[in-house]
């Protein structure tokens, strides 16, 4: 019997791939949790699209400054070596390809790397786009953290996105509650998703059934084992 990863465990797994010295933007929700789980030997600069390069921990009591927030509007601190710019300069940094990585949430990722994460077509509510399109189009690498399937059981890793796209052909890697999957954009594995890691107790057939697009398994496909983590 398999046990899907928790939000924290998915964020933990994504954090293990953060490179030492990297400049990284973490999207709202699960992605921003990844900062809590980066290995201690990695020196990382977190970018917030409202202008912070070097976001530190959330501000504790006595540290709060309402004029210093991150992209989730949370009051934060700064790390050593941080700097602050205005929004135009901050997005110049994103669009100019200066961020090594962005980790975003997702509604759907397609087998060609298309990402849909901004418009879930909710009735009676206006659209909210924020910086997702700029991050998806601008960062050198785009990773996504999302549950493998929607709450109604439908696939979120799909042959073609049904939700409006955020950016075409940009996603390299997806962290789900069931697996770590790469997008085979170059077609080396015949196209589609390639599972790199799969949670204990889940069969390859079960993962394939939960995936709405072609799925291959890497020759060295490993077990995805995450530590127990308290709720963040």
């Amino acid at each position: 019997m398999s046990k899907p990863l928790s939000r924290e465990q998915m964020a933990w797994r994504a954090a293990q791939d953060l490179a030492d010295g990297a400049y990284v933007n973490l999207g709202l929700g699960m992605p921003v949790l990844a900062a809590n789980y980066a290995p201690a030997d990695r020196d990382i600069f977190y970018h917030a699209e409202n202008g912070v390069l070097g976001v530190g921990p959330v501000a504790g009591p006595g540290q709060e400054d309402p004029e210093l927030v991150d992209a989730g509007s949370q009051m934060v601190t700064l790390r050593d070596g941080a700097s602050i710019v205005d929004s135009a300069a901050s997005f110049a940094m994103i669009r100019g390809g200066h961020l090594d990585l962005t980790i975003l949430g997702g509604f759907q990722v397609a087998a060609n790397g298309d990402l849909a994460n901004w418009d879930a077509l909710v009735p009676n509510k206006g659209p909210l786009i924020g910086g997702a399109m700029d991050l998806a189009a601008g960062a050198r690498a785009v990773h996504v953290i999302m549950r493998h399937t929607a709450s109604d059981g439908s696939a979120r890793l799909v042959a073609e996105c049904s939700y409006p796209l955020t950016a075409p052909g940009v996603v390299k890697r997806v962290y789900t509650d069931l697996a770590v999957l790469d997008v085979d954009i170059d077609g080396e594995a015949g196209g589609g998703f390639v599972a790199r890691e799969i949670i204990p107790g889940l069969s390859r057939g079960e993962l394939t059934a939960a995936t709405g697009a072609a799925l291959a398994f890497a020759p060295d496909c490993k077990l995805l084992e995450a530590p127990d983590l308290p709720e963040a």
Partner: protein
Amino acid sequence: MINKCVDDLAAALAGISSGASVMISGFGNAGIPTNLLHGLSALGLSRLTLILNAIRRVNDCDPTFFAEGQIEHVITTAFRGPGQEPAAFETQWQDGKVSFEIVPQGTFAERIRAGGAGIPAFYTPTAAGTPLAEGREQRDFNGRTCVLETALTADVALLRAQKADRYGNLCFRGTQANFGAAMAAAAELAIVEVEEITEHALPPEQVHLPGIYVQRLFQAARKD
């Protein structure tokens, strides 16, 4: 002698009329000029166009803006209220009383920057291949499809800074600059509420926004 300080809120907002386009700074609660926003709402103008990152911040700050139907059009990156129920402005949109243009945040910032920098239009890869690019002029550069975007300018910009001198030079605190720095340059009339107006000029190398972009300064404590 150059002195851009005005005495009160009324003087700060003098001359703004119905039909004006107004840029409003702020990301989260940082850099939102709440004193100026309350003052603008109280003027009871109509047919305003608001240009701002997230419309809900204005709604949170002063709901009378939308209750009274002062707004005609919004250019924004987020036309969505909190929660599941539609907010007042979402209802007005569905009733055809308010229209909006939705823009990716980086394109939004760059269009404002272009407005202040005399660049009438530019190409960007952001939004290419998405529904936002449908029907838009697109073009490939270096093998990548880009969308043509035009500059945003406005009649008025409202922003908040930590410090100013009488020349209008500004220092921002924390992430207070966000859209305000570019908005000041893109608007005909930039009005700034500041926590402190310094007696002496700010040090030249520490000025975040040169006074040339600021027309009026108004001292006001932060209001949440």
